[in-house]
């Protein structure tokens, strides 16, 4: 008689799910730090956007969507947001392209690769405050290096009030931002380039492909996922730009370089935590939509091709 494999009430033998606590214990400190210092403030910020609170009063007053209504009806909010979008538009093109070209340059050269890589990455490791102060003196209209160099090389007609001209201030701050940020893009692209098989480049060389053909038909397509990451990173930093602009222009002259984080900072300085957190929440939602939308678009494009 065939022996029954199991009888009622008896557990069936086979693979069983076993919860090993060790990995969770290892990641617990990181998760706790993330929850307390990242997630917690985000949730608190969203919560406070519905209350009138000045950091001091033990009581708060529920205001519903009033702060959002005020923010969305404030011309200065839209002015600041517009500047963030200009910054974003430039940031996904210029520092990213610079990072790519410099990464390819460093990848291609035979000698001095380490020196170039270190020199070009150097600005990225400086504090943003230091960078801003350096650029403040570079841009000084009559004691600064930039105008002095332009004068010295016979281009005096191109000297400008780099930070004092409302038409230029935002773009001048963007140059300082680019100087500080292209190094990150470059290092990430460089890491991506090293993952591309050299066989592909060798085959292209045998087929007679020139530099530009290799760049557009091999390098850029092979760095598809790296591009997604680098551009997403630019979305975060461009929409959250603060330090460089705050030190260089304070958002001026006459709001010409104002961005959302400076707008929020001005509200916090007034202890209007409700308005400040509402503006910050709107900005955060925009960043989430932009970055998620971009990532999804790239995934869809990758899948459809």
């Amino acid at each position, binding site marked *: 008689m065939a022996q029954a494999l199991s009888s009622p009430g008896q557990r069936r033998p086979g693979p069983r799910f076993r919860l090993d606590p060790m990995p969770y214990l290892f990641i617990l400190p990181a998760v706790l730090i993330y929850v307390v210092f990242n997630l917690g403030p985000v949730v608190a910020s969203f919560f406070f956007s519905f209350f009138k609170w000045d950091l*001091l009063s033990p009581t708060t007053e529920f205001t519903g969507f009033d702060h959002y209504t005020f923010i969305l009806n404030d011309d200065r909010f839209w002015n600041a947001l517009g500047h963030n979008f200009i910054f974003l538009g430039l940031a996904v093109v210029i520092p990213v392209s610079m990072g790519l070209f410099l990464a390819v340059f460093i990848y291609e050269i035979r000698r001095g690769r380490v020196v170039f890589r270190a020199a070009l990455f150097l600005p990225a490791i400086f504090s943003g405050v230091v960078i801003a102060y350096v650029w403040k003196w570079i*841009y000084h209209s009559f004691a600064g290096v930039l105008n002095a160099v332009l004068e010295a090389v016979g281009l005096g007609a191109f000297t400008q009030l780099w*930070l004092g*001209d409302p038409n230029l201030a935002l773009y001048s701050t963007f140059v300082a931002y680019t100087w500080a940020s292209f190094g990150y893009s470059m290092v990430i692209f460089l890491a991506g380039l090293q993952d591309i098989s050299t066989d592909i480049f060798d085959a292209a060389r045998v087929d007679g492909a020139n530099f530009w053909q290799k760049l557009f038909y091999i390098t850029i397509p092979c760095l598809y996922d790296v591009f997604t990451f680098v551009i997403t990173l630019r979305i975060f930093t461009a929409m959250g730009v603060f330090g460089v602009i705050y030190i260089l222009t304070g958002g001026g002259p*006459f709001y010409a370089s104002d961005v959302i984080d400076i707008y929020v900072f*001005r509200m916090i300085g007034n202890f209007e935590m409700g308005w400040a957190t509402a503006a910050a929440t709107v900005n955060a939602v925009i960043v989430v939509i932009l970055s998620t939308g971009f990532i999804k678009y790239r995934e869809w494009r990758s899948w459809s091709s």
Partner: protein
Amino acid sequence: MNTSHFRSIFQFLTVAALAILLAGALSLSPALAQDSTDILVWGLGYASNYDELLVERFNEAHDDVNIVFEDVLTGEISENNQKLRVAMQNEAGPDVLGGLDVGANLRALVATGQVRDLTEFYRESGLIERIPDNLLSQVTIEGRIYAIPQNLESVGIFYNKDAFAELELETPATFEEYIDVLEAVKDAGHYGYTMGLAGGWPSALMASMFMYSSAGSEYIDVLSGTQPWPDCDNCLDGLDAFQGMVANGYANPDPLGIDYDQSLDLFYQGQSIMVLNGPWFINDANLAEPDFEIGFFYLPAVNPATDIKTLGGIGGSIIIAEYAPVDAAFKVVEWLTSEEIAVQALRDIAVLPAFSIDVPEDIPPLYYQIASETAANVDKIGFWPVTYLAPKVFGDMNQIVQGMIGGMLTPEEFLDEMQATHSAYLAES
């Protein structure tokens, strides 16, 4: 385990307990012997190195009260106020604080019951007799006094005495003479009016100086919201004169692109001859060590009929936290407001107290001139705009002044823009 083991353990525990008791007694003994009360202080209202010096002097002179100094304040007022609010709400803030800005911040601290009512202290200590009424009104809320005005500041023009002598210029008594001086300075290839507005606050300060200079106390009505900004016709003359500093080429180039510190460098380097500033400038100038002598005069009134001589007011005030040990805190404040300490601060770092003192004549001539002129004109000082305006409106004012100086707004549009900003804030808050 035999009895000898128990004996050893017992001996060890006895020795350990005695050691702990001895250590505890030793650590407590100084406090018991002195019976002193600690008073936590974040700042006494001066620069932190001078605060530390004062704390040292106080602790040497007092056995019953000990100041514990925590140097947590920075040069950023808004950041300091955030720290203060959070700490005071949790009763972890300072017991005594000097240098607090009056205006919206003091009103908020009082409204939430964080600050001790000092009305009785004023009466008992006789302090009420020593502070001018207009300064007292700045720290009085609904008839009660909550802070002690600590120092008094007034804004004027610091000038390069050597350059004035070289150009054979006299200090101007009228606004017309002031324009003549500016023209002469411009002809000599220098800048007469130093302007660095990129940092923000100097914009509102300078515009306010000129509006006080033309509209006097009418400008106070505008700041306090009892008169609409566009209705201040006399303000326009001041704004025109202010805009004229740039339009007529008296100011340095790029006033919107350089900040306060960079503009002062122009003065120290001799490129610029005059700078509108407050008495805190004296310490900056002492550190910069320019190779010329510095003089001082008040900006002559744009409108000679104005009832306000200059811009200024309380540079900082002293408060006592509601949770502070009262007697010990009063002792610190009494010492801080004594004539001895006030005169010493004037002598050492050119800070004029807000309470009346006899200005000593043996201090540097520039200190003496500013202190005596400020004291003499105390009832003709128009207070800082931030005394009346919410910090947000003040912050916006800095940007709007930049718009006017940059030619993006006319003086009339400036007043309209200020009205819109001010009334939008009042309506929403």
